[in-house]
């Protein structure tokens, strides 16, 4: 086997050096009643070429572009990934290295992540960003727990327009803690209803997503003011990182903690994972942050270098009192995001975000012209909700056979929204693709 270099000669020499007669002797400390008697019931080994063939068949059974036009976002977005990004991510010095605990031989990863932290902080308008979390949902759960730690209060409020799966993850994380999670309802215009905050007291934090699950842009400044009047921390989250290429960033809207999903930044959808949890906060909460942090410093010769720092927050030192249990994070995905942000650049990201918005707007207008109702009037970024007529599910199925996925039906997540569909358009959908969709749904 090409990954097992030992020849029988090697094995004999090594057994001799160890003083064992055979490999079985090496397992002498394992009690007999713990040893497995049978071989593993797994399929026999495939050659590299058989594996290629097998995986090619399975890969072929997936509905992806360019064959399929998938007008779905809802936390997972299709964006073009430059060849240069994929190429650089293949460099095995990045891929096969471990967590940079020995900084002298990991300056590549450390500088790259320091750059990622900086670009992430700039994107979100915040003072400090962590080196990554698993995904937007877990980053939100960690943010809420952080707010509880900082304020020492046990109640949080979350908007019902935060991604339904994110809210589920929050509930799963909060279940054993005894802390309370309250959901804020939404208004007819597709935005969060914050009136209910007036009655709530002792809140650690209030979390709102923008653009929200319906694609609508929330009025963060107004919400933030109300939240701060309640002496709670203002947490904003997002599923579409690219939106901040165009929209006012959460930092400028007085967010205390910002968290969300960075998959749009150069990471393929890959059926949902691996993703990129982004988390940023004001500097004053730095020592309560979960996750790894890279800091700048100097070496013995005075040369600039980078190290993991503030490690006393983490599990390997603080153990049961750590700010989180996270160890392995999504470092390579953070690297992908940094390379993507560096490639698109400051000038480019604004243009790209505008293109996303304008293409989605075009589809919205065309559907309006075709007589369909846009469910919520508030401005959106690259996703919006349409109300299709009764019986549209048959049209939806017909379109599937034509290799078009006409959005995400919302009734499973919001039972009051039967026949409402969440549509997403990015720079990967052309005008022709959108015209084709409109034609099909009209007929």
């Amino acid at each position, binding site marked *: 086997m090409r990954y097992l270099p030992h020849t029988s000669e090697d094995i004999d020499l090594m057994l001799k*050096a*160890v003083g064992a007669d055979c*490999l079985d002797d090496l397992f002498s400390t394992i*009690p007999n009643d*713990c040893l*497995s008697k049978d*071989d593993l019931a*797994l399929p026999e080994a*495939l050659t590299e070429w058989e*594996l290629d063939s097998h995986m090619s068949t399975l890969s072929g059974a*997936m509905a992806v572009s360019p064959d399929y036009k998938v007008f779905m976002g809802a936390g997972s977005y299709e964006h073009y990934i*430059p060849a240069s990004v*994929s190429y650089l991510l293949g460099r095995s*010095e990045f*891929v096969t290295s*471990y*967590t940079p605990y020995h900084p*002298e031989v*990991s300056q590549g990863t450390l*500088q790259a*992540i320091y*750059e990622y932290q*900086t*670009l992430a902080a700039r*994107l979100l308008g915040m003072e400090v960003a962590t080196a990554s979390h*698993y*995904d937007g949902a*877990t980053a939100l759960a960690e943010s809420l727990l952080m707010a509880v730690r900082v304020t020492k209060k046990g109640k949080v409020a979350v908007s019902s327009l935060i991604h339904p799966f*994110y809210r*589920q*993850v929050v509930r*799963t994380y909060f*279940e*054993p803690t005894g802390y309370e999670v309250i959901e804020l309802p939404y208004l007819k215009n597709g935005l969060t209803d914050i009136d209910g905050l007036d009655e709530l007291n002792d809140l650690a934090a209030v979390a709102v997503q923008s653009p929200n699950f319906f694609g609508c842009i929330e009025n963060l400044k107004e919400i933030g003011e109300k939240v701060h009047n309640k002496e709670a921390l203002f947490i904003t989250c997002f599923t579409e990182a690219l939106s901040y290429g165009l929209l006012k960033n959460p930092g*400028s809207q007085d967010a205390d903690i910002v968290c969300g*999903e960075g998959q749009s930044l150069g990471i*393929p*959808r890959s*059926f*949902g*994972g691996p*993703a990129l949890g982004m988390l940023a906060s004001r500097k004053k909460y730095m020592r309560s942050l979960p996750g790894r942090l890279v*800091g*700048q410093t*100097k070496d*013995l010769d005075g040369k600039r270098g980078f190290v993991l720092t503030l*490690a006393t927050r983490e599990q390997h030192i603080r153990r049961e009192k750590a700010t989180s249990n996270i*160890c*392995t994070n999504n*470092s390579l995905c953070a690297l992908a995001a*940094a390379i993507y942000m*560096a490639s698109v*650049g400051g*000038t*480019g990201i604004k243009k*790209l975000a505008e293109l996303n918005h*304008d*293409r989605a707007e075009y589809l919205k207008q065309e559907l309006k012209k075709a007589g369909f109702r846009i469910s919520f009037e508030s401005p959106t970024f690259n996703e919006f909700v349409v109300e299709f007529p009764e019986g549209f599910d048959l049209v939806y199925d017909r379109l*599937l056979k034509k290799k078009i*996925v006409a959005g995400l039906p919302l009734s499973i997540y919001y039972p009051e929204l039967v026949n409402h569909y969440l549509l997403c358009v990015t720079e990967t959908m052309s005008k022709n693709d959108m015209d084709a969709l409109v034609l099909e749904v009209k007929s």
Partner: protein
Amino acid sequence: MKELIGTTGLILNEPLLWEKGKKGRCGYSLPGRDVESFPLDNELTGEGPDFPDLSEVDVVRHYTRLSQWNFGVDTGMYPLGSCTMKYSPKTNERQAGLSGFAGAHPLLPSDFSQGTLRIMFELEQYLAEITGLDAVTLQPAAGAHGELTGMLVIHAYHKNRGAQRSKILVPDTAHGTNPATATLCNYRSIQVNSNEDGILSVESVADVMDEDTAGIMLTNPNTLGLFEENIRQIAEIVHSKGGIVYCDGANLNAVMGIVKMGKIGVDVMHLNLHKTFSTPHGGGGPGSGPVCVKKHLEPFLPVPRVVEEEGRFRLSYNYPQSIGKVQAFHGNIGVMIKAYSYIRSMGPKDLKKASRLAVLNANYIKESLKDTLHLAYDRPCMHECVFSDEKQKDDNVTTLDMAKRLMDYGFHPPTVYFPLVVHGAIMIEPTETESKEDIDKFIEAFKAIANEAKENPDLLHDAPCKSKVRRLDEVSAARKPCLTG
């Protein structure tokens, strides 16, 4: 030693991204505009982030140079204990990159995602077979995340029986993630000390196990590289008081095809695909931490679950007792595809062989270095062995000094100062993918370093000297953190 592996070479300095570039440059091919502009209200739009503008050449050179400052498994031997830095097969990368897998939206109707669903279903079956357990979730993103998932399952199990418990037993050799996870589940960690042989004794567990204890979190083999020989009796004691046995599967590389944890008393365990199953570490992640459970814990697993009906696969949310979700979507699919490819490439015989050779390599190092370094426990080890700097005390040389000097010799240091039960611990895990010649060079290097400790200790105190930077000022980095540029 004739020629050392570690040598100097011309690598280049490279500034930070925002110290380069020029306004107006772009490293991205902006798609053409085929729709009109629909400007948003000024109230909503911002200036855009302050990113540098770089050309594609700027970006490629930047990251190519940075990569050359890193030492990876592809560079050389990386014997980090309990991390299993085995070789990451390149065919795995090819499979995960296939466009059908990489481009798929997670909420596609199941008829349109049969390829990935099949891989998930089969991988679950393989992991169940390897662990000897009954049901699997692939949703957790990493080992610690798997630990959290497992502990949440335990918490839900006790809640379901109407008897919530407040404590959990954690051995003194446990990885820091274990007690940190316990806290997240509102459990108080009760430490159980290992005996003089480095393993848990039945009495020490019996002393503390009661009906307010949710269970025990063990690691087997443990972080000293030793098999927890008393595991069956320990499991019995925990079960007799209604507790659950959790196994941290980080060290599974020692016993694949040799021991099935589910058959020796374990109820729930997590696996690290980025350790045992060869997926690359990526400079800190992403990983994948599937959790395998016994039948009676299956109802509590996160949703959705992959179900098979007449050869077709779909995702089901129909599990009313589920703990919910631990990630937004279905887990780190890209990582799972690599692990799946590994298992299909190795087959049952070579998976078992891998464990046997991993154990052989570790014992070979143990025997070869036990006169040079102080061996913490002079007993047969599994896939890793633990030494300390006891013998170098008189030379005024520490574990850290030896670790830093190893870099100059062309090796990544082993794990140091963990587990905490050994003062100045040096935990070496070669893995099965290291050849005898490379291991011999590693042994030679360590012997040379021990010699230098006696004859010229400053070489160690000043090490490393061949790397791009020398020892870094971690004190200032912590006193005055500078986390963004």
